[in-house]
Every structure is written in structure tokens, then in C-alpha cells.
């Protein structure tokens, strides 16, 4: 009991020092060594060591059930926060929605007419119907942000048919794409992330450009042709160039920030709850797969030697 009341106990070091090491240098030595290991891991991450990616995905998979339950437990607090945020702008939102509703009623009739015209024209010119793209809907169980990160974690993975590169949609439009996939979880890269580059078309003239994330709320417009006349309010859609995304996914609208034109995404990232992952095979990836398969087949043929039937003999077609 005397020991418990010892006033100097607070001052003592907690752990016995390493043999031959004085107490004064023990902590700096141990922590310094671990900080050096951690900095080594930063370098390994930068060099994109394969083991780092594998370990990261494995931990994410293991943590996804915990995160799912934690998110459900924290849901009331989350909803309360959102309600409070909404409450402040309730009157303003109401007026805006009323205006929007009026305008949309006018557009609805026009859209129906255009739809009829388009389907009649498609019929006339025999347009090949685009293949239907499947999708899976998943919940965002973790958000991640920092000076250079805008990403999220989904509670669906390879077991649910997800693959790296698949586009991710919210109810409003394009939210990002799948970055890494585990068996039960997938990391998505949001369109606002520093590393996000999305080929887009802007406005009535369909000016081609690249939407470039910079971790801010309004991504930049890059590689826009000099003669293109885009203006605030123009809609932005994916162009499909490069084959990473299908053409025509809604991305955002052009806004004027005062010093430059930027894109305001239609997705509200602070409300990202459920998202749909489109099973859209990136064209470049499928071409690369095909190329790899051809190379593998060619090397097998080479290894087996001239006795193996060739395409000319009708055995193996390249």
C-alpha cells in the first residue's frame, strides 16, 4: 500500500530498461528504432512494394465486418449531424427545390419528345444496342481523407464480382472507381482525389477535357482545347476516351471560382452511403488480358517445339 502512495512513482519509467542501456536513453532508443521502421514502410509504400498492397488489402478485409458494425452503431449520431446541417439550410433548400421542380416539369415533356425522336432515329439507322452493364450495390463503410487522399471503403469485394477499375456511381452520378479489391471489401478512389484523372466531355459542343482531382471539392479542368467555349452551368459527362469509363456518366457541372473554371461534382461526398459498382470492363484492361493470353499461347507453342500443330495446320489458332 505504501508503494501505491509513493509520490515519486509517477516519475518512474514504466518498463525496466534494456540490459546495458540507461533509463534516460531507453525510450528514445526503442521509439527511435520503431520510427525508423515506420519510415522504412513509408519508403516501401512509395516504391509500391507488392507485399504492402497485399498486407493492406488483407487488413481491410479483416476490418470490414468491424467497420460495418461500427458504422451501423454510429448511424444515429451520423444522421443527427446531417439533420442539424440540413436544418440550417432548410428554407433555402426548399426554395431552390421548388424552383428546380418548376423547371424540371418543363424539361420532362421535352425529354419525352426527344426520347421518342432518338429511338425512331436509332431504328432508322440500325444502331447497335450497347450491351447492358451489370452492377452491385454496396455500402460505404469507411471514408478516408487527408491532404492527399479522398477514398472510401466498400463492404463488397471480389466475392461480389468487383474488380479493380470498375466505375462507382451514386444516385446522382459518378463517384469514383474501384482501386483495390479484397475478398470482402474494396477501396474506391473518389473523383476528387489527387490521383484521379477522368476523360470528360463538357457542354453542348462536347468539348473534350480531363477532370483532374486535387483533393479540393472542385476538380480542375485540364487539357481543354483552346478554342472550346465552355461556360458555367455546362454539364460534364464521361467521354469514354481511354476505355476506363463508359461514355455518358454524369459527373458534374462547370462552375466559375473567380480565377478559373472548375467542375462541381454532382455527387455529395459528405452523404455517400450506398453506391453502385458498374461491372464495366475497362477496354484497355481487356485488351491487355487478350494480349497476355496471346503471348502465353505463343510461348507455349514455342516451348513445345515444331511438332505441335500450328494455326496453318488448323490445330491452334492464334
Amino acid at each position, binding site marked *: 500500500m505504501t508503494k501505491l502512495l509513493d*509520490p515519486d512513482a509517477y516519475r518512474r519509467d514504466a*518498463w525496466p530498461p534494456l540490459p546495458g542501456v540507461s533509463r534516460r536513453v531507453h525510450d528514445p532508443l526503442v521509439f*527511435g528504432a520503431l520510427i525508423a*521502421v*515506420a519510415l522504412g514502410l513509408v519508403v516501401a509504400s512509395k516504391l509500391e512494394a507488392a507485399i504492402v498492397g497485399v498486407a493492406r488489402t488483407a*487488413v*481491410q478485409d479483416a476490418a470490414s465486418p468491424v467497420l460495418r458494425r461500427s458504422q451501423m452503431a454510429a448511424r444515429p449520431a451520423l444522421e443527427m449531424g446531417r439533420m442539424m446541417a440540413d436544418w440550417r439550410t432548410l428554407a433555402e433548400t426548399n426554395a431552390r427545390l421548388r424552383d428546380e421542380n418548376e423547371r424540371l416539369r418543363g424539361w420532362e415533356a421535352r425529354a419525352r419528345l426527344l426520347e421518342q425522336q432518338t429511338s425512331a432515329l436509332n431504328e432508322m439507322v440500325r444502331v447497335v444496342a450497347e450491351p447492358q452493364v451489370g452492377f452491385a450495390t454496396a455500402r460505404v463503410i469507411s*471514408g478516408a*481523407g487527408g491532404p492527399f487522399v479522398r477514398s472510401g471503403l466498400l463492404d463488397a469485394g471480389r466475392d461480389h464480382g468487383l474488380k479493380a477499375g470498375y466505375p462507382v456511381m451514386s444516385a446522382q452520378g459518378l463517384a469514383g472507381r474501384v482501386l483495390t479489391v479484397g475478398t470482402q471489401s474494396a477501396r474506391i478512389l473518389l473523383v476528387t482525389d489527387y490521383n484521379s484523372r477522368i476523360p470528360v466531355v463538357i457542354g453542348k459542343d462536347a468539348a473534350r477535357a480531363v477532370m483532374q482531382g486535387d483533393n479540393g471539392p472542385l476538380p480542375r479542368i485540364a487539357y481543354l482545347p483552346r478554342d472550346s467555349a465552355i461556360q458555367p452551368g455546362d454539364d460534364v459527362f464521361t467521354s469514354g476516351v481511354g476505355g476506363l469509363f463508359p461514355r455518358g456518366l454524369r459527373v458534374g457541372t462547370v462552375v466559375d471560382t473567380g480565377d478559373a473554371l472548375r467542375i462541381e461534382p454532382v455527387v455529395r461526398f459528405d452523404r455517400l452511403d450506398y453506391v453502385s459498382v458498374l461491372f464495366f470492363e475497362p477496354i484497355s484492361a481487356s485488351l491487355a488480358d487478350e494480349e497476355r493470353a496471346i503471348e502465353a499461347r505463343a510461348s507455349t507453342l514455342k516451348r513445345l517445339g515444331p511438332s505441335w500443330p500450328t494455326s496453318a495446320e488448323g490445330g491452334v489458332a492464334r
Partner: protein
Amino acid sequence: MAVVLAPLPIVLTLLLVIAAVLPWGGPDWSEMALALLPVSAVYFWSLRRPHLMPALAVFALGMALDVLSHHPLGVWTSAALLAALAGRLARRARPGYGWARSALNVVAVLSLVTGFVGVLLSAYAWAWAPARLMGEALLAACIAYPVLAGLLSLVETAWPVAEDRPLFLRGD
């Protein structure tokens, strides 16, 4: 009872790690500020009960934060280790500190950690980390620290005063 409570600081810090990566949907700086909360908890326990927050546990907690927040591995790990080391060094001279000096210590440690993370991320991305975002996150973390420390102090009362050695190494 004390042995049962021994992992509580680590568990509580792990809960803060999980809370930091949940999709709260706050402003830009809030995610960085939330990530500073587990680091603040590491500092608190290293200052008050270092035997309950060993170096390897700090390393593991930092790694969990790195993986779940999708930062490069080692960034938050080294930041948490830095905070733990600062807590342990501050602890040696702690008796006699007034609240003002303690508050200054907290601000200094959180500034050090935020600056360290900013420099590491800037070097990693080869671009300057936005100073405003880091500053806002730091300010929020400094304001949140007294609340966090107050809550953790309530938990701390579960242990006898001045119990200092590792509970599982006591032998008595």
C-alpha cells in the same frame, strides 16, 4: 480487476482509430482532425500510464490508422510513435506543471505531429500539403483534446493512484 482493465487504453485508442475512419461526412479538415484523436489518446496514455501503452501497441495502432485511412503505411505510425515518445519525455518532468504549461505541451506535441505528417505526406506526394487544411485540423484537435482527456481521465480513475509498473509484470 486491474489485469482485466489493463488493455483498456489500447482498446479505447483502437475505437478512436475506427471512429476516425468512419464516413462522418464533415468538412475537409475534419478527417485529418479525427485522425489526430487517436494520436492525442496515445499521447495522453504515454503521459499518464505509459506501461499501458507500450511501444509495440502504439506501432500497431498507428498501422491500423494508416491502413484504414488509406495513407501510406508508416505515416500515422511514426506520428503516433512520436506522440508517445513526447508523452514519455514530458512525463519525466511532469510534477509541478501547471495547467497552462500542460496545455502548451499538448499544443506543441500536436503541432509537431501535424507538421511531421504534413512533411511526410508532402515528400511522399511531391507536392505541398495544404497548410490551411492542416492548420484547421490542428486547431480542431487542440480544442478537442481537453474533452478527450477529460473522458480518458474518467477511465483512468479505474486504476489505483500511482500504480506505475506493468500490471501483468507485478508478481505481487
